[in-house]
Each structure stands twice: as structure tokens, then as C-alpha cells.
């Protein structure tokens, strides 16, 4: 069995998660402290969650493809993302970003407001408060959000196949491999990939439950 879809999926999902982690965290902190237009910004940042992935893929194609201004700029500097694993990363980032953003925001907002007020009256600067008070308290929730967004990136199909296509050994992820196998009538191969994916996803979810359970217990003890 050719295991390249597994490595490709992992490479794409891990890269995407690293990017999504930082983007999502910054967005979560920014929106929490936003005063105006909070709901609108939140809506825009969350929209990939509710759009069909093929719609997202289509929009990405328009943005990065040959016919757009940005796409032509990229071409001029020799960068092409269509049908590459980097394109799949971009698709995975867009799809999994709302998961990280919303999870991180929830975790940050759960932090007792009085802790932040106290830190301010005690002379701490805002970034120090984020680093030493908010993030440590919100960490279990943030980690859980990261894990969930990794799982989402790993399972991405619709946008990936539109941007990155289905090039075996280059952009054929596990979910695409299942589809291809079924298309070719190779049920047995499809089943093998399904088992791999299910095992992975289950492990990830169990890990996530463990992490959020730990934070719940810690908070209960403190109250």
C-alpha cells in the first residue's frame, strides 16, 4: 500500500495548524478587546465554518488563480499555489481557522475578569497580562481548540481538491485517496484509508477530551 497520502495529509495538516494557531490566537485576543463592530468581525472570521468547503475552494481559486490580480502578481514572482501542497495548506488554514479562533476566544473569555482587573491595578502592562495571566489560565481551552483545528485540517476534502487537485504523491491527501479509491471501484483500499482516518480522528478527540477535562478539574478546585 502506498502510504504517501498519510504523509501528505500530515504534512499539510501540521503546517496548516501551526499557521492557524497563531492567526487564531491573535484574532481571538484582538476581537475580545475590540470595542466596536465586534459581531460583524466575528461573523466574517467565522464564515468558513458554515460555508460548504467547495464554496471556499471556489473563492480561493478566484483569489489565487490566474485570472485575478493577486494571482498574476504571484505568477510574476514565480509562485504558483494551484495544484501544489502549499495550496492545500492555504485551503486547510482557511477551513480550520474559525475552529481555532472560536475555541481560543471562548477560552480567553472564560478567564475571570477580576484577574485581568487585578493585574491592571497592580501595574501590569496589557501584553504582560496576556502572557502571564490570560494565556496560562486559558491554555487548556486553547490547546483543545488547536487539536480540534488540526483534526479539521486533516479531514479537509472539498476545498483541498479544488485548489490542490488530486496528484498522487504530491497532493493526494487521505480523504482524497478514499474518494479516488471508491471512484476506481477499489473498495478494499478505500476501507483501509477509512480505518486509518477513523483511528487518527478518534485518538485526537480522546486527547482533546482529556485536555479539557483537566482544565475543568483545575477550575473546580480553585473555586
Amino acid at each position, binding site marked *: 500500500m502506498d502510504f504517501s497520502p498519510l504523509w501528505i495529509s500530515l504534512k499539510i495538516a501540521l503546517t496548516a495548524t501551526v499557521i492557524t494557531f497563531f492567526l487564531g490566537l491573535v484574532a481571538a485576543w484582538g476581537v475580545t478587546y475590540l470595542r466596536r463592530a465586534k459581531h460583524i468581525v466575528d461573523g466574517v472570521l467565522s464564515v468558513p465554518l458554515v460555508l460548504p468547503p467547495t464554496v471556499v475552494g471556489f473563492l480561493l481559486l478566484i483569489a489565487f488563480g490566474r485570472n485575478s490580480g493577486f494571482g498574476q502578481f504571484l505568477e510574476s514572482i514565480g509562485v504558483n499555489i494551484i495544484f501544489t501542497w502549499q495550496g492545500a495548506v492555504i485551503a486547510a488554514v482557511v477551513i480550520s481557522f474559525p475552529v481555532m479562533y472560536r475555541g481560543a476566544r471562548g477560552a480567553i473569555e472564560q478567564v475571570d475578569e477580576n484577574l485581568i482587573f487585578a493585574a491592571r*491595578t497592580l501595574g501590569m502592562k496589557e501584553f504582560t497580562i496576556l502572557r*502571564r495571566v490570560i494565556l496560562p489560565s486559558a491554555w487548556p481551552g486553547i490547546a483543545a481548540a488547536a487539536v480540534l483545528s488540526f483534526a479539521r485540517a486533516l479531514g479537509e476534502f472539498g476545498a483541498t481538491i479544488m485548489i490542490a487537485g488530486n496528484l498522487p504523491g504530491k497532493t493526494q491527501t487521505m480523504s482524497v485517496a478514499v474518494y479516488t479509491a471508491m471512484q476506481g471501484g477499489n473498495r478494499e483500499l478505500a476501507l483501509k484509508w477509512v480505518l486509518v482516518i477513523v483511528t487518527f480522528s478518534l485518538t485526537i478527540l480522546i486527547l482533546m477530551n482529556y485536555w479539557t477535562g483537566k482544565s475543568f478539574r483545575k477550575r473546580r478546585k480553585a473555586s
Partner: protein
Amino acid sequence: MRLEVDIEKYYRGFHLRSAFSVDTERFALLGASGCGKTLTLKCIAGIEKPDRGRITLGDRVLFDAEQRINVPARDRGIGYLFQNYALFPNMTVRQNIFAVAKEKEYAEELLDRFFLREVADQYPAELSGGQSQRTALARMLVTRPKVLLLDEPFSALDNYIRTRVEHEILDLLDTFDGPSVLVTHDRNEAYRLADRIGVMEAGRLVEQQDRQAFFDHPGTVAAARLTGCKNISRLKRTSDGSLYAVDWGVTLGRDTGEGAEDATHVGFRAHYFTYIPAEDAAGMEGMEASEGTKTSEEGAPILRCRLQRVIEDTFSVVICFRTEGNPVDTPDALLTWIVNKTGWDAVKDRVLAGTFTLQLPPEKLMFLKDN
């Protein structure tokens, strides 16, 4: 150093108006829950922003709406003790204090002063109530604040620790060279800890006096209730000019006391009734007044009382009664008389028999306005 506060804020359908000043003394903001006292503290600390007004500390302007000055909380030099202490849960006691300390030796000194050495490496979740509070105090003091703001500092503690912790806070307040503002809904706490008391009601600071004056002459019905006055009645002037307590069914005579002219209510503390033994009571028949009350020679109203209920407390006995023939049946028509356990032994038989006689020393009447 003088703290001057004069602010207004509209907050979730609530209109806050607070104006007061505190020098190097202890000022208590007393009021029921939700009346705006914590919000006032937060505005002083810079955690919340008033819509209008001015806050100054010494000759520094901390907030001025018109001049658009709003010093951030971290630069105001204000110490704030939160009701739940707000200790950072991810840091040990030592880390909590050192995270904000600019002077390391002073931080070590405070660790010793508040007896926190043994628990220095424990996390807030492992501390007792008293230890948590001492940690919060040490952390607050290590920044050398110029003003202390204490938000209901004892409400999170069990009764038996409260006294000990209160002494610690009293020690602290005694040696603190600056204004301190304490927020509480407990009138006894305000009395014990503060020099002056301000009453807040529905967002407004309605009055402020030094504490003895406040308890002797609360001035308003709300303030009187806050001080724990249990007997409050509406007041009416009868045709011959004397005052009549409507809810009690008692005529109070004419020449009555401070504030009587524009008073709408009258209050009387449950501890101040004088008991008249049966023998003497009989001799007071035949003086005039309305049903159920007579007036003695000195002009002190005499009440014929009908027992409703006796409640035994730990160190005192609470006697609830009505006056004979009182036509009014409002909640305020039920009067309260409190005696300590020794006093109770002397009057027990007569009171439990159902009818007894009491006297109202007129100098203890408090004339109140309803704002």
C-alpha cells in the same frame, strides 16, 4: 493626601452618581447589593470609565471627562482588594507577589509580615480563606499604593475567621498613610472599620457623616434601615400639632427633637425601649392620648403591647409585638424589642403572659426623611 471623586455613569439602565472626598481616613460606602458601590470603586481604580466627572488624588488628576484625561489603571497607584481576591491561579503565592513587585526586598518583607512563608510555594487553590486574603493583601501592598480600595473584604470568609482577619485589616488601615475606601453592605462592619460612612442607594450617594452621627441620626429611611433600625413608621401631624406614628399607632407628643419639622418618618431602635413593670403601669392610667398609648409625666409615650412572637437568638431575645388597638396592619406595625438574656429573665413572665407595657424615651427617637 486627599482623594476627590465626583462622577456619573450610565451603566446597563442604571444611573450612578457619586461625589465624595476622603483624606487620610477610612471611609465606608454602605449600601445594599447592586446599589453601585463596587462600580464606584472600579471607576476610582480606572477599571471602569465614568461618563462624566472628575477624580483627583492629591494634586494629580486621574480622570477628567471634560479635559479627556483618563490615566490607565496601572499608573494610578491604587490598591484594590477584590471580593474574591483575584489571585492568579497559575502562580504560587510567591509568584503572585513577585510578579508585580518592583522591590524584591520589600516583597520578601511582606511575605514575612503576612505570615506567608510556609505557604509561599502553594497555589491559590490550596490556600485557606485567611491565607488567600493575606496573599491578596501582600500583593496589593507590594506595589506601594497611595489609596486602598477594599471591596467587601470579609464576605468570602467563614464567620470564625472573620474576626481575626478583620483585626489584620484594622492593623493595616491604622498604619496606612492615605485614604482608604471600604465597600460593604454590613452596617456593623462599616461601623467597626470606618471613620466616616456614606450611604449609597440606587446609584446615588445620598449622604455621608462620621460614624457616630450616622448611627444616631441616619437622616433618611434608607440609611436608617441600613443601620439596622427595625422600627420605622410613617409620621403624621394631628390637628393639635402633635406627631403621630401611623404604623405604630403611637402619639409622640409635640416637642420632639432634631429634624422633626420636615420629617416624614420616625425610627426607634429595638434596644432602647424601657420596660415598665405591671405595678407602675397601673399607676399610669388616666393620662390622655390616642388608643393604646398614654404619655407619662416626662412626655415619654407609653405603649400597651400585645405579644406576637418571641425569638431566641444566641445572646439576646427578640420580642415582636403590636400596640393595643392599633388599626393599622402594615409590616411596619409589627414592632421589635430586643433584650439580652439577663434582661429577659426579669421580664419573661410578664411578656409571655401576652400583654406588657413599654416606654419610648423621646430623646432616642430618630426623625427621618424618605427620599
